[in-house]
Structure formats: structure tokens, C-alpha cells
């Protein structure tokens, strides 16, 4: 193992999170940023970098670069909106870390904010036609609607290749629900049985309602700082030891299998290499799991289970409280809350700080956090640790 972190996360801030309209995307972002700055023990004037991540289905103007002016952030050395769909949140951390190393900034605030749940509910915000074929507009014409459809298609392929069943998907949802029951911030805490799961309405078969994420309105921000300054704040630093990206692309030809072989493997291998560790060294995971299948696939793609073995690994209780590899300890996207990439990121920070309360994992030495965008198209990951050295 190598010993030098790339950067550190010194602060985290949440806006209110709600299933009701509680403010604009821009207002919630501002609240989260101010909370993160306070958490890091900094002043607004200490911030010299701002990175913004807006939802890929939100209007550009919902979260403009003018957030800088809202917050009166002056003389920034770094300002950008990162647009890589669900992988953007972790990319913000990566670009902040690299910019700090290059001297562009010292304290970079990274924020995601979204308000998908409107007064009439949140059911349509992600009723999108995902472009999988290569012909723009084709999916709409074919009635291939809803993000759930794209993921259902991928899940069905995994089922055919590896014998994954609905009960396996249900086991993943149940594992997440068990963690959510221990998380005061989680939205869905009622105990879940496999019968409950199998009785939940089918959305796009093979995915049921309980396979799908639970969107909320809210914002989360984190402060990224240099390693040398990381100990100056009031909170224990969360060190970023590894990072990677993988974006495999699609040929749309025979032999391509973006449903089961994604860029996550490349992202993971790069992250392990950069941290000088192996997948076996990971002690807990915070996956971007907008659908149950994504969590199962991540276990395989990031080398934590062999190909086709994640379903049984989860069904055996290994990812649930008390298991050998805790996964999505806040309840994840399914039972915690869906705020895209900052859901797993925030839980990773909380766990590394040892602030998980009832859900705190016993071993937080090395936590893998992932981000996934498109339909398994774009992948980013981080390796976080409370330790300055991994040796």
C-alpha cells in the first residue's frame, strides 16, 4: 500500500431534505454550501473554488454558475459546472483535488442540488427516454420510456447470463432497508420482507417499484482541501486515497455488452492502483444504486465479488448490517434518499468520520464510493479513509 492521500474532505453540509417543495434548487444549494463551510470551520472568504453538479434532467438555469454571486464567493480560482450525469458528483471531488494539487485553489466547495419532487409528486421527473440505440428520438418512438426501462433491460440480461432472480433483487432492496432503519435521515425505514418486495407493483419488468430509487428535494455540499491543511478544521479529515473513472462507450454491435460489462471495472482498477490497494482491502461500499440491479452489478464490476456471484453474496446477508461487507449503510438510493451522486458521497464521509451512529460500520479503514451516469455509461469512484497513511 502507498501512503499519500490525494486530497481531503474537510466539511459537509446538507440543506433540508424533503418529499415536499421546500425551495428552489438554487436556494437549497446555497443552504448546503453555507452548512458545509461552517462544518469545515471556514468563512465564505476562505472558499476559492466552486464546482456545481445539476441533475441531467434539470433546466440549466435551475443551478447556474451565478450561484457564486448568490453566496458572494469572490476571486475564485476554480469555477465550473460538471456534466457527466450521475458520475458528476464524484468527478467534482476529483477535479477539486487535482486543481488544489496544481495550486488553482485551496478550499473548493462542491455542491449538488435538485428538486425533482413537485407539488403534484415526483413520479415524472425521471420519466425520460434514455438514448441507448444511437438514433436520437428512436427510444421515444418505440415507447422505451422511463429510466427504469433502461435499467430493467440491463437487469434482464444479467438474469439471463448469471441466473439472477427477482428474489436476488429483492434481497438487495431488503439489505438497504435494514440499513435505512438505522439512519435518521433515511426516508423509507419500515421493515421490508421478500413477500413485501414481490408484492410491490411492477414498473417495467423485471423491475418493481421497490427496485427503484426514492427521489427527494435537497442539496448536499462538501469542502475539498489540500492534505496539508486537512487537520486545521474542527472535523476529522476524510482522506481521498484513490480515484478513477471509466466510460466504456457503446458500439451498438454484436459482442458489446454495456448491460453487464461497464466502465466501472476500469474506474475501480484505476482507483485501487492510485491508492496502492486491492479490491479485497475495501471495508465498506457506498454505491450509486438508483436501481437495485446497479448495486449487484457494482459488487462484481469493482472486483468485490466474482462475475455472477453478487446476487448470492447479497442474499446471504453479507451487505446488510452485521455482514462482511457493509453496502449503502444509509439505505442508499432505494431506502435512504435519491440525490444522485451525493447520496453515496455523503454517507461515505459520515462513515469515515465515524459519525454513523447506530449504523456506523466497525471497519471504516477504506470505503469505496461510486457514481454512475447514463444507463451504466459513465463511472467514477473514490476511495476514502480516516487514515493519513494506508500502510
Amino acid at each position, binding site marked *: 500500500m502507498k501512503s499519500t492521500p490525494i486530497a481531503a474532505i474537510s466539511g459537509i453540509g446538507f440543506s433540508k431534505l424533503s418529499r415536499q417543495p421546500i425551495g428552489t434548487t438554487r436556494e437549497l444549494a446555497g443552504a448546503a454550501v453555507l452548512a458545509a463551510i461552517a462544518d469545515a470551520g471556514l468563512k465564505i472568504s476562505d472558499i476559492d473554488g466552486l464546482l456545481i453538479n445539476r441533475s441531467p434532467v434539470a433546466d440549466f438555469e435551475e443551478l447556474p454558475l451565478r450561484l457564486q454571486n448568490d453566496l458572494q464567493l469572490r476571486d475564485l480560482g476554480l469555477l465550473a459546472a460538471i456534466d457527466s450525469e450521475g458520475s458528476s458528483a464524484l468527478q467534482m471531488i476529483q477535479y477539486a483535488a487535482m486543481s488544489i494539487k496544481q495550486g488553482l485553489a485551496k478550499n473548493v466547495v462542491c455542491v449538488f442540488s435538485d428538486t425533482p419532487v413537485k407539488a403534484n409528486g415526483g413520479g415524472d421527473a425521471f420519466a*425520460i427516454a434514455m*438514448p441507448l440505440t444511437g438514433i*436520437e428520438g428512436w427510444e421515444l418512438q418505440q415507447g*422505451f420510456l422511463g429510466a427504469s426501462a433502461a435499467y430493467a433491460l440491463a437487469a*434482464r440480461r444479467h438474469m439471463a447470463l448469471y441466473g439472477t432472480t427477482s428474489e436476488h433483487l429483492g434481497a438487495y432492496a431488503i439489505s438497504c432497508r435494514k440499513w435505512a432503519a438505522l439512519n435518521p435521515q433515511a426516508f423509507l425505514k419500515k421493515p421490508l420482507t421478500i413477500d413485501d418486495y414481490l408484492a410491490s407493483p411492477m414498473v417495467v*419488468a423485471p423491475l418493481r417499484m421497490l427496485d427503484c430509487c426514492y427521489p427527494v428535494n435537497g442539496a448536499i455540499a462538501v469542502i475539498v482541501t489540500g492534505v496539508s491543511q486537512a487537520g486545521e478544521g474542527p472535523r476529522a479529515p476524510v482522506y481521498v486515497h484513490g480515484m478513477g473513472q471509466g466510460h466504456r462507450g457503446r458500439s*451498438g454491435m454484436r459482442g458489446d455488452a454495456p*448491460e453487464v460489462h461497464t466502465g466501472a471495472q476500469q474506474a475501480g482498477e484505476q482507483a485501487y492502483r492510485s491508492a496502492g490497494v486491492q479490491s479485497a482491502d475495501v471495508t465498506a461500499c457506498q454505491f450509486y444504486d438508483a436501481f437495485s440491479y446497479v448495486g449487484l452489478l457494482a459488487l462484481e464490476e469493482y472486483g468485490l465479488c466474482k462475475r455472477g456471484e453478487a446476487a448470492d453474496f447479497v442474499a446471504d446477508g453479507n451487505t446488510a448490517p452485521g455482514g462482511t461487507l457493509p453496502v449503502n449503510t444509509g439505505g442508499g438510493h432505494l431506502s435512504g434518499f435519491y440525490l444522485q451522486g451525493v447520496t453515496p458521497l455523503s454517507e461515505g464521509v459520515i462513515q469515515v468520520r465515524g459519525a454513523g451512529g447506530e449504523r456506523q460500520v466497525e471497519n471504516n479503514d477504506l470505503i469505496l464510493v461510486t457514481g454512475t451516469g447514463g444507463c451504466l455509461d459513465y463511472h467514477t469512484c473514490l476511495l476514502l479513509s480516516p487514515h493519513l497513511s494506508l500502510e
Partner: protein
Amino acid sequence: MTVMQSQYDQYDQEFLHHIECMELRIPVDETSQKVLGLHARYWRVDDASAVRWIRAIGTATVVSYVEFHRQYAKDFPVPYVVALVELTEGPRLLARLVGIDGNDVSIGMPLKVSFDERGLAFQADLAVTR
């Protein structure tokens, strides 16, 4: 309905025009006889490109499929099935399956192209299935 897809360009229009004419066409490099996937657009920017839209044989197999139970659009009453199909020539695309119940679809099932009032669809290729 939010659409993540961008504006059609000439490439898309050509493919869709063929569909309107009840023809499924795929890009083939006439020099190498290599078939291209529908994602690849690079050949469209070169006037001298030897790639042309060639009429597909019209047979395919099911790679994966989904059945819609939630109705996302008024004009798509549920349930209906959409499959990721692999054309005999190699390219993959999404298409509605018609004339078959979702419970009867299987991975690897042979299909043949079909056109209805909505455009392209596929149906079970009974000649092969038998």
C-alpha cells in the same frame, strides 16, 4: 415526458426516413463490407465515405427485453414489450415486439422485422422457432 435525446441531425433523419418508407437500413462500409453499429456517426462527416445505408435482412434475435406495466405516455397503453434485438448482420437496436405476450418472450428468440402504424417492430419468426 422529458427527453434526454438531442435534436435530430441528418444522420437520424436518414435512418428515420427509411423507417417511414418501411425499410430497416443499416450502415455498411462498401469497401470492407463491414457493418457499423448505429452509434457510429463519424462516417457521416466525410463526403467521400464509402459507408452507405443498406437494407437489412430483417431477421434478429432477442438480447434482452422489458415489459412496461407503468404507463408513461397516453399513446402507449400497457402492457407492451420492448426488446434489445441483435440484427443478423450484427447491429443492435431497441424495438417493440408485437403479436407476442411478454411471458412468451425469451432471450435468444428469433425475430423478423414487421411494420405497423407506429413504424418498425419485430415479431416472433415462427419459421425459425419451429
